[in-house]
């Protein structure tokens, strides 16, 4: 028999490795998240278990690939975590930092194995040393100081019990690196174990896949242990294996839990009433490549266009004569709509994917800068297209770094200014009128108007004192503009604002700045909601058609002359339920000649334009349709007042209106006319 080093086929190894890298990355991210959230004075028991499990998984899989550097440090980490979760060791803030350092090291090692990236050996050594020191201290610590090595908390000393365990493992249990022999070894160490393996159907040798677990096990264990302890041993395989544990001859179990001496010195850990829901839901999930999803989305998009075309053709036929066709087309429309919704939701991910990196970033950065910063996050479950999320990451990171570096003052400066020593950075995401709006808010020093004007003047930009605040803030988007006194290595040259703005605009979005000196700054990014499909209302203005996003629409109406008033410098307004709503004649804005001039001859569509209500005057409503958003920027450029275009049923292009920009444009126009 030839002696081969590894039994893996090169192809299989590659695929398994890819899965390993992905899963490891997820485990590390989960650990980081848990560590950042955990409260050492009162650690959440579920979180401790989850941390242990994650480390254990990494160790197990790392072992299969012989990544000994990872398994070494993970083993140390796991051992310490095990003590902590079993209440044998108290968690301290220093330990949390050490654990974070350790996960960093493991990440580095992972990158080393995956991409050949360099690994900082010193960081690894110091983390390992730290962990070993904890273990060493634990082992030598006198009984009263730290916990006595009791096995578990609240263990009812129940006496000898006999358990029968039926264990049907999932087929891939060996491949996942689970060492069943060790599992059973642990059981055996609890007491006396008899085990019987059987095959439900013994396979023929030539048909047999030795890498899959075909055996079913019946175990019999006599031990002074609780069922919980036994389940614990199976915890890593419980999810997809069948485990049935029965207790025979139960002892009297009404004795109150005996707490071993020494445990009262530890802070009580708490089990939350509802389990933290960060585990996978019972339905499970499948990994699918992003490209496949995109392909499906494109195909569904094309399907929508075809369906729209068919509907239009069908619409021109006599419904009575072609009743069946009509019904069929309606059914098709429904089916397409459902398919589309399902497909689109595949690419939607919560923005938390981007937000999640900030707690760590802020923690490290604040420490480096000697500032105290608290991060508040709202709307983290706001969903947006995966592609958008990835592209937002850089601009947002830059803005957050800027806030810490330049905006938030050091504690002494803050206190002198009458502010609390801890600065607050807020990240807020929400969905408004077909857009995703992300705010980065700080309560720092605010933008320095004078400094910006000075710098602009220095650069030869035409400025004057009379410029509005908005106009002054816009100056920082000039390429190469930086008011940072010195180039710090933290946020780089500070020239990032123009890059941020460009990045955001490339996504079809925009950046706005609001700032008050001494109080703080708010930077608002707004981006189109999805990259592909929109519920819209098609309207006609003259011979042209436009699409208004449905979720921006409040209502539409046919006004009578009495509802309209003309106000000097405001143009026309609509009187509606006591309010005066600015009326925007689209045919004027878009220079369309053949349109109805007077509002009462047309239809008014009242929309929510980023908080402000305006009434868009159109000639007629055409119909509601779901449109596939096509990019104008791809081959042309951004057209003000629009959020992309679409292809109608007749094959013509129609522009999708950006009601916020339209309102802005209109106000700008009125100002110009008044001037």
């Amino acid at each position: 028999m030839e002696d081969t080093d590894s039994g893996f086929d090169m192809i299989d190894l590659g695929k398994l490795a890819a899965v390993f890298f992905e899963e490891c990355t997820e485990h590390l991210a989960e650990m980081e998240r848990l560590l950042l959230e955990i409260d050492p004075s009162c650690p959440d028991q579920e979180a401790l278990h989850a941390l242990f499990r994650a480390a254990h998984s990494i160790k197990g899989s790392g072992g299969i690939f012989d990544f000994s550097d990872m398994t070494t440090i993970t083993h140390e980490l796991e051992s310490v975590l095990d003590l902590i979760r079993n209440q044998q060791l108290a968690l301290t803030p220093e330990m949390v930092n050490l654990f974070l350092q350790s996960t960093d090291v493991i990440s580095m090692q992972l990158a080393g194995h995956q991409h050949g990236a360099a690994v900082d050996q010193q960081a690894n050594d110091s983390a390992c040393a730290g962990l070993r020191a904890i273990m060493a201290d634990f082992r030598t610590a006198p009984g009263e100081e730290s916990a006595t090595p009791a096995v578990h908390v609240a263990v009812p000393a129940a006496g000898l019990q006999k358990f029968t365990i039926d264990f049907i493992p999932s087929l891939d249990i060996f491949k996942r690196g689970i060492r069943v022999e060790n599992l059973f070894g642990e059981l055996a160490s609890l007491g006396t174990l008899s085990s019987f393996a059987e095959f439900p159907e013994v396979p023929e040798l030539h048909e047999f896949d030795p890498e899959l677990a075909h055996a079913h096990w019946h175990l019999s264990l006599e031990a002074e242990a609780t069922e919980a302890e036994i389940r614990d041993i199976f915890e890593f395989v419980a999810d997809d294996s069948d485990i049935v544990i029965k207790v025979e001859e139960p002892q009297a179990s009404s004795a109150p839990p005996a707490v071993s001496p020494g445990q009262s010195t530890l802070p009580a850990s708490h089990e939350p009433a509802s389990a933290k829901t960060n585990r996978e839901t019972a339905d499970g999930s499948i990994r699918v490549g992003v490209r496949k999803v995109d392909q499906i989305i494109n195909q569904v998009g094309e399907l929508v266009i075809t369906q729209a075309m068919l509907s239009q053709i069908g619409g021109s036929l006599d419904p009575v004569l072609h009743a069946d066709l009509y019904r069929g087309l309606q059914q098709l429309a429904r089916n397409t709509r459902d398919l589309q919704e399902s497909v689109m939701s595949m690419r939607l991910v919560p923005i938390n994917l981007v937000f999640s990196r900030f707690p760590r970033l802020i923690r490290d950065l604040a420490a480096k800068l000697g500032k105290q910063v608290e991060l508040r996050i709202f709307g983290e479950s706001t969903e947006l297209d995966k592609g958008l999320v990835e592209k937002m990451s850089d601009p947002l990171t830059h803005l957050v770094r800027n806030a810490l570096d330049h905006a938030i003052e050091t504690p002494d400066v803050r206190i002198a200014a009458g502010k609390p020593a801890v600065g607050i950075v807020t990240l807020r995401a929400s969905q408004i009128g077909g857009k995703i709006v992300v705010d980065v808010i700080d309560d720092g020093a605010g933008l320095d108007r004078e400094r910006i004007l000075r710098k602009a003047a220095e650069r030869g930009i035409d400025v004057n004192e009379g410029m509005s605040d908005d106009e002054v803030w816009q100056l920082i988007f000039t390429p190469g503009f930086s008011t940072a006194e010195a180039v710090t290595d933290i946020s780089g040259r500070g020239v990032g604002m123009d890059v941020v703005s460009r990045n955001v605009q490339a996504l079809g979005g925009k950046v706005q700045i609001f700032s008050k000196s001494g109080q703080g700054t708010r930077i608002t990014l707004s981006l189109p909601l999805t990259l592909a499909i929109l519920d819209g209302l098609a309207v006609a203005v003259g011979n042209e058609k436009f699409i208004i996003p449905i979720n921006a629409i409040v209502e539409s109406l046919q006004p009578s002359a009495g509802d309209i008033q003309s106000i000097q410098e405001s143009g026309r307004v609509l009187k509606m339920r006591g309010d005066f709503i600015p009326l925007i004649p689209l045919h004027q804005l878009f220079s369309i000649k053949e349109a109805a001039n007077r509002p009462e001859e047309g239809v008014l569509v009242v929309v929510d334009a980023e908080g402000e209500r305006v009434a868009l005057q159109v000639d007629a409503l055409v119909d509601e349709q779901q449109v596939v958003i096509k990019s104008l920027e791809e081959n042309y450029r951004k057209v003000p007042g629009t959020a992309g275009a679409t292809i109608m049923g007749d094959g013509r292009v129609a522009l999708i209106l950006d009601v916020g920009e339209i309102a802005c444009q209109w106000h700008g126009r009125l100002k110009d006319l008044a001037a």
Partner: protein
Amino acid sequence: MEQAPQIINGASAPSGTKEYLTFNLGGEEYGMDILKVQEIRGYDAVTRIANTPEFMKGVINLRGVIVPIVDMRIKFNLGTVEYGEFTVVIILNILNRVVGIVVDGVSDVVALLPEQIRPAPELSSSMDTSYIAGLANSDERLLILVDIEKLLSSTDMQLMDLAA
């Protein structure tokens, strides 16, 4: 309805030559690098875009992709223009974008050797001479060779946001 688009392939040319698509504009004949040409279509179903220069006719739907159309005849002030079944639109692939230009007509594809091309003197052409790559003689025709990419990406065409 749209006429069937002609798709032009890079046909096999004698070695050393470069191929040019010749087209008419304001009575003069021009040539452009054939490799930039994607297809030739008729003029149809153009959606206007408000507040753009006159030569910017709007956008069309080219098999699901939105493509801007520029009328070169208007851009270079070549008299009154009409749009009909014989109006020609050349669809180009420039700088990773697809754009279309309206011209008076399209002739044929000529292969030219580098020796056949002379630098352009300051002649009075409707087109700004900085976009002219040279002059060539072919079959007793004088061809003005145009750097179509440079022309269409220039800021006054306003086709592209070149900040990126």
